[in-house]
């Protein structure tokens, strides 16, 4: 077994016993990177010297691949965009500082859709990332590089970020475990903002236990991010002890199963997952989240609106691309942004600006915020009746590169992941099987109440233990 194949838990055990050092792991990952990255394209940059240097300073720590929107001091942070070409981070994000405090260090930067806008990583201006299970297919997105690196065994584990499904859908496509923590559970300080009322950083890993260890390392209060509450972070990994499906009430929201666009194999695997839970002692409870059908519409108002404000900072003044063609400040803004941003980012900025513009704000943005309240209330209601929801994660397995050309069709990928993001609750994607036709991985989604990551991880672990059965 090569060291790059290890997960966090196994790596830690080997490090503790002195069987190998962090430097050995990094060397193995670098070897794998040279062997596979040309094909898979998971990484967009890999500062081998920095990674080896950190490994020598911390000989018992575990390297983690970092999504290219999280600042690591001295490293590029392109966010998949031409507008940040040449940018070097002046400081560490809080999640990076937390990793370093808790036995980890950053190692390589992985690809993503530009500014996390997309579901296939095809919107990256930097590189093409391919699904390690089928190189003609996408890894999902926006954390497609993280998922391809984990699924392709090109890292021990990775950090991703999730705004409307960007951890969970690629985790489903690439056979990894992904956790979208509750809103505010993990600090976003130093993480480039897309939609600030939704963004969360989370782990992408080879097992639920690894994801639990990594989430415990990054979560918690940060005074640099006012949305992080002073709620204690349990030892998630220790609480997995004895995780079991017996007596767990699994909610089956009918709106998620009545969807016509769901692929037949995804349906078979998800319904199979329900059956396995029941056989392992869970009780299935039919529940309803009546406002589910409006979630996509709400999201595609709120997320672009927030993005249009967040991305105003890319103006060619303080950092990032500045157009050489500009003669005055107005054209400096307009041309720098025109040259720096890709098509999807421009579309979302325009949608966001439109729904916030005079005369339209009440009908679109404010109304969307009210419908969001109703979506959140739906979740509050069902968590009185069940412990966790089990749903499909993405409506299809990984699709082919170039297959989805129409923006609105691409958006439908996040149909099942968006509602829980809007509600601010926590959710996971856990591998559940492979398609019969193409041997493509398919994950299922578990959703738990806000700040109930402990339960989410326990249910996910209990499922992982029976999923292969």
């Amino acid at each position, binding site marked *: 077994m090569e060291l790059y194949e290890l997960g966090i838990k196994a790596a830690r055990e080997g490090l503790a016993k002195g069987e190998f050092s962090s430097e050995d792991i990094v060397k193995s990952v670098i070897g794998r990177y040279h062997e596979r990255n040309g094909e898979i394209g998971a990484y967009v940059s890999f500062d081998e010297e920095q990674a080896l240097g950190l490994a020598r300073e911390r000989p018992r720590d575990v390297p983690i691949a970092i999504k290219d929107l999280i600042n690591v001091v001295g490293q590029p942070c392109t966010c998949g965009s031409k507008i940040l070409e040449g940018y070097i981070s*002046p400081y560490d994000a809080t999640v990076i500082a937390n990793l370093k405090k808790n036995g980890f260090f950053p190692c390589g930067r992985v690809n993503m859709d530009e500014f996390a806008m997309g579901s296939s990583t095809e919107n990256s201006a930097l590189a093409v990332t391919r699904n390690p299970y089928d190189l003609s297919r996408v890894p999902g997105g926006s954390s497609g590089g993280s998922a391809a690196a984990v699924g392709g065994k090109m890292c021990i584990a990775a950090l991703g970020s999730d705004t409307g499904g960007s951890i969970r859908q690629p985790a489903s496509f690439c056979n990894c475990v992904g956790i979208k923590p509750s809103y505010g559970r993990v600090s976003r300080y130093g993480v480039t903002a897309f939609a600030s*009322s939704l963004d969360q950083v989370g782990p992408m890993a080879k097992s639920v236990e690894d994801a639990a260890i990594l989430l415990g390392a990054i979560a918690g209060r940060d005074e640099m991010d006012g949305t992080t509450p002073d709620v204690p972070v349990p030892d998630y990994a220790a609480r997995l002890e004895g995780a079991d499906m017996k007596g767990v009430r699994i909610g089956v929201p009918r709106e998620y199963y009545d969807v016509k666009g769901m692929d037949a194999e995804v349906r078979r695997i998800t319904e199979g997952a329900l059956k396995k839970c029941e056989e392992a002692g869970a009780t299935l409870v039919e529940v309803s989240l009546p406002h589910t059908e409006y979630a996509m519409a709400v999201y*595609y108002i709120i997320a672009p609106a927030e993005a249009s404000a967040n991305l105003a900072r890319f103006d060619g003044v303080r950092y990032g691309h500045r157009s050489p063609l500009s003669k005055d400040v107005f054209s400096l803004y307009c*041309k720098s942004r025109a040259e720096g941003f890709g098509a999807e980012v421009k579309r979302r900025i325009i*949608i966001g600006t*439109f729904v916030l513009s005079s005369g339209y704000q009440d009908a679109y943005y404010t109304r969307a915020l*009210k419908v969001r309240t109703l979506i959140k209330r739906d979740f509050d209601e069902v968590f009185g009746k069940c412990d966790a929801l089990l749903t499909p994660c993405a409506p299809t397995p990984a699709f082919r590169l170039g297959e989805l050309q129409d923006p609105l069709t691409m958006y439908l990928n996040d149909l099942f992941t968006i509602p829980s993001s809007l509600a601010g609750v926590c959710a996971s994607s856990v591998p559940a099987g492979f398609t019969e036709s193409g041997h493509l991985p398919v994950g299922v989604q578990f959703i738990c109440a806000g700040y109930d990551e402990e339960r989410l991880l326990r249910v996910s672990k209990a499922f992982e233990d029976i999923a292969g059965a």
Partner: protein
Amino acid sequence: MKIDVGYVAELARLELSEDEMKTFQPQLEDIVGYVEKISEVDVEGVPPMMHGREIVNAFREDEVRPSLETEVALANAPARVGDEFLLPKIVEGAES
């Protein structure tokens, strides 16, 4: 819904090419047409959800703390003069 893409792009400080205008127009109208679905929902008396969590006034003490050094903050500047970011002139008619 007809969107004046040129006008909205100008509000967003984005210069669009002719080709982009042509491609975006139907795409944006499709997207806006789709999100209009929310007009079906009865939101009478429903408060807006402004944040991902209910938080009111996340304050901290207003005290001076260490922050980025000037050189570090300027390191990514596209153009600088001394300790400042350099820009084309902003005020019409002023000496540049």
